[in-house]
């Protein structure tokens, strides 16, 4: 149960950084890099490459697999040669990427090269040469690998003796809880919860919803001193299904009482994820899509025409940042459209997609787009569905509310804040 290592590639497929691979032949990482680059080059669409590539090996007797993900401009590879859980590799990649973001903010080939020593230290501390993840919780990592900004600050203030930085906390992992470090102090004790819910739905030609589900997550920013033990109660916890929690949450307690009991990590973390299922009289138990799209698409030789009406079904709230997209098919060359009320359209020649952007959709309003597109293909094949993304700020489909936040183990009263945001990603077929 161990991965072989980690490789980071830039967008040209060249390695920026990689872990040791000491117990493998030197060609091993190269083999994986080449295999992936070849697969990418020969795939019709770069997203269509199998995420777990089978790699037959230099000598046919040592096959291995290459798990890879793309985030931003970079690709992260995780070769595995044993019978390992690929999810384990993906989970590790995800964690490592999150750590990079913690440390550098924006992650690009440039930032990684500029801070290569920190990257290598991170690799060393998060993954041992046998492929076992070591320390991945940001709270504990900060003690042993000093983030670039903090390092500079400490050095300039203390006037050096490098050991000073680590002797400031000479007992890393002194904390019995792996995700929280000891001795945290804040002047203002506060904790913020961001509840973000995404409606994910497919709507059929006739306007009926084929599938719809609401996925929610609670992002938390914790600035509390000491080792607080929190008890968080939601007002409508029974509508939260399929929950998954940060390791800090006591799972047995949730199973019993539907309350969250936990000692939070310091700083930002994702407390929980859930699926919201409304309790309603209707048997469908679905959240309805908050708009209606009336599409009319006519495909002719070398082009076609599009007519769209977008109407909000919300009566009080405004939808923001609405994007209606249609892939126009192989060979599409351009489009020209007329849109109503201060909305705008564009054609992206790289993705061959027509995008209609509606910055703000006021309650119950309707908007239209009318236009045509051209294509070099004799019979263009645009995709059979529009993709609609939107945002409803200060709102939650689930109307999730914090009923109570109790703190034990420390004697101060924390300030708690909560903010909701609803997103949508709808596929509307025509």
């Amino acid at each position: 149960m161990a991965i072989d290592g980690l490789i980071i590639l830039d967008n040209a497929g060249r390695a920026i950084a990689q872990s040791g691979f000491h117990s493998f032949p030197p060609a091993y990482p190269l083999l994986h890099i080449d295999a992936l680059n070849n697969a990418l080059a020969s795939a019709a669409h770069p997203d269509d490459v199998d995420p777990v590539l089978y790699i037959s090996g230099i000598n046919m007797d040592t096959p291995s697999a290459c798990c890879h993900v793309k985030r931003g401009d970079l690709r992260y590879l995780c070769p595995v040669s044993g019978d390992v859980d690929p999810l384990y590799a993906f989970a590790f990649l995800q964690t490592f990427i999150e750590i990079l973001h913690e440390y550098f903010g924006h992650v690009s080939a440039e930032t990684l090269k500029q801070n290569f020593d920190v990257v290598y230290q991170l690799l060393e501390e998060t993954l041992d040469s046998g492929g076992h993840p070591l320390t991945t919780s940001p709270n504990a990592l900060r003690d042993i690998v000093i983030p670039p900004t903090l390092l500079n600050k400490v050095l300039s203030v203390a006037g050096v003796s490098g050991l000073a930085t680590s002797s400031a906390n000479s007992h890393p992992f002194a904390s019995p809880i792996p995700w929280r470090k000891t001795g945290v102090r804040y002047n203002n004790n506060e904790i913020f919860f961001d509840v973000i819910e995404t409606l994910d739905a497919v709507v059929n030609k006739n306007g009926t919803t084929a599938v719809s589900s609401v996925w929610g997550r609670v992002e938390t920013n914790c600035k509390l001193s000491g080792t607080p033990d929190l008890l968080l109660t939601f007002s409508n916890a029974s509508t939260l299904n399929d929950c998954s929690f940060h390791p800090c949450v006591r799972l047995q307690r949730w199973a019993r009482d539907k309350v969250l009991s936990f000692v939070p990590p310091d700083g930002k973390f994702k407390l929980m994820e859930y699926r919201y299922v409304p309790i309603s009289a209707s048997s469908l138990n679905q959240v309805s899509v908050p708009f209606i799209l009336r599409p009319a698409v006519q495909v002719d030789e070398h082009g076609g025409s599009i007519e769209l009406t977008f109407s909000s079904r919300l009566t009080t709230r405004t939808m923001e940042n609405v994007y209606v997209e249609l892939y126009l098919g192989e060979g599409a060359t351009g489009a020209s459209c007329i849109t109503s009320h201060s909305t705008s359209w564009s054609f992206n020649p790289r993705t061959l997609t027509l995008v209609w952007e509606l910055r703000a959709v006021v309650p119950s309003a309707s908007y239209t787009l009318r236009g045509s597109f051209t294509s070099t293909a004799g019979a263009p094949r645009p995709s059979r569905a529009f993709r609609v993304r939107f945002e409803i700020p200060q709102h939650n489909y689930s109307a999730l509310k914090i009923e109570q936040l109790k703190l034990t183990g420390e004697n101060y009263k924390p300030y708690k804040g909560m903010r909701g945001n609803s997103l949508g990603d709808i596929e509307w077929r025509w």
Partner: protein
Amino acid sequence: MSGQGGQDAKFFQRGKIQEFRAELEAAESKDKKFTKRKTVLKKIVANITMGNDMSPLFTDVVQCLGTPLLEIKKMVYLFLVCYGRQKADQLHLVIPSFLQDCNDRNPLVRALAIRTMSYIPTPVVIESLTDQLRHCLKDRDPYVRKTAAICVAKLYAADPRKAEKGGFVEMLRDLLLDSNATVVANAVAALSEIGDRQDGVIFKLNLTVANKLLTALGESSEWGTIYILDSLLRYVPEKHSDAEMIAERVIAQLNHANSAVVLTAIKILLYLMNYMENRRLMEYICKKMGPPLVTLLSSGPEVQYVALRNILLIIQRRPAVLKNDVKVFFCKYNDPIYVKLAKLEIMYRLAREENAREVLAELQEYASEVDVDFVRKAVRSIGRLAIKVQPAADACIQALLDLIETKVSYVVQEAVIVIKDVFRRYPGKYEGIIPTLCEHLDLLDEPESKAAMIWIIGQFANRIDNADELMDDLTYTFLEEPNEVQLALLTAAVKLFIYKPHSDTTKALVHKVLKWTTEEVDNPDLRDRGFMYWRMLAINPTVAGEIVLAEKPPITTDADRMDRGALDQLLLHTGTLGSIYHKNPETFIRGATGKALTDSPALNPLSRQVLVPVARTNLPPTTVKVPGPGPPEPTMSNATSQDLLDTDSPAPQVQNGAASSAAVNLMATGSSSQDTPEDGGEDDDAVPQAPASDPYAALDSAFGGYLADEPRPQNKDLLDMI
């Protein structure tokens, strides 16, 4: 470094060895804050990462090890890890520094030292590591202990006998009871790694230890949780109640945020269910497993892919798990193709009479998509749905006909291919649509679809008025056709002749084809078949007719279900590469140990009946011996190694013998229970069947990738030939 953060890119310049050496020498004087050394070392490390050989600097760099600065130590250690093995003859120079660091005040330095040493497995280093490791395993700092635990596995990899003699395995076992959860998890990881080696000490858990480990779950990191959960596969429940109790404690982990934890927990639950009796609890567990699997589908496409491939296995063994969730597997048009194909397969598996209408509507939607591969699979799935769910067959056929009307070449071709199977599944029911098919003959340009259409024309030549004309047209290009089509044409021509023996055209046609196959074609299959038909027709046309048009066995979808025993075994690999490729890992990963259910009094009868023994290459009953604490024991049989963690002393040990005898045992159990097949009353729909001699026989046909899994009558080729 201060003041120049963010400018490290300039270190990435090719440097010369001599320059670096000179710079290091210069840095020895007047380098109060070690900034000079740090800069040089950084340049050197940058060069290492660029792949430039820096090994000539070995002696120079090693001298920096005395510098009391953690950052410099780290870089020197990195250098050592890279070039240590190359410079084995000079490593003795470093040992004193290593020893000093192992006793440093700072736990980070202590841990760093033993970790680095374990990465350089040369005899000199291993020698001094063994002593230090023993201290570090008992260090008061948990960080050092947890690092040391992993180092034991490294030591074992380098020199198994030394590690065993040194008593390190026992020390790891003691760490299982450590107060710090991370230390426990790492000890488990190390023991598992050792246990997975072909020559390793076998690592088994008993109930007491399993319970202890479960207690540590609460405070573990996600990786620790995975190690601990995974190790539970090494616990063989002796009683139903034990399995049930452990499972109840594992269920909570299904709510973990880490997808790998969730899938590992599911693997353990599936495993434990083999040892359970309480039907209500099993139903409850099945119900609990569904939602977390669905949740995985809201993650990125990579995770979705892995999850989907596993779901495909799980629903075959425990169909109750996602019975009512077919909707979650509906595809979005911007899903990557690998996700779409996997979803499609699951939709087909979950299709039942109750949801067939919804599934069909979706499939029809997909059939008009842009992506050709996906469209083909969708069309094919419509046909498979017709074959699987009888009440939906009418609607499916109508859908296929509608698709044929689109006249999109690849859609029509796929439709023709599946319709052929539909004809065989429901003989005498849908032949009315044959004329429609014939209208689209000219759209078929791929061998498979062409062969399917020719089969249809030949088989139903008596119902097609102009069959002889059609055949005449089709044979026009006979010699240029691919083999598959030629074979189909040959058989169809013979069938046509048998249906219409008095027509001159058919006579001429069959003669022409037989002549071509026997005289002008090089392919031996085709030629031999031509000769065979010719003789049959020459000797006795009536009998030939009976043979060629013999009734065919009905087609079913059974062939695409995997064998229960193989499935049980694959599910032990839930989440791993084996489950992605649907193959047992020992068949494609060198050195992987197979896994098999272990027999125990609690194993449910049906699982036992289909038990597949592990294909582990059995080593001779080893020299592996683990002396326990206290005075040296008299040489005992090879059972010592297995008893490692069995602190319940003389518990029934029947099945815990040496690996070799266990395997023999299992095989014996497997075969003896063949005589008494009994229905274990499993909730899944698997019909208990006599264990096949080769449980993987059905595997290829069922799962050879996405393309080979359409229902096919077994022995089809043979029957078609006749």
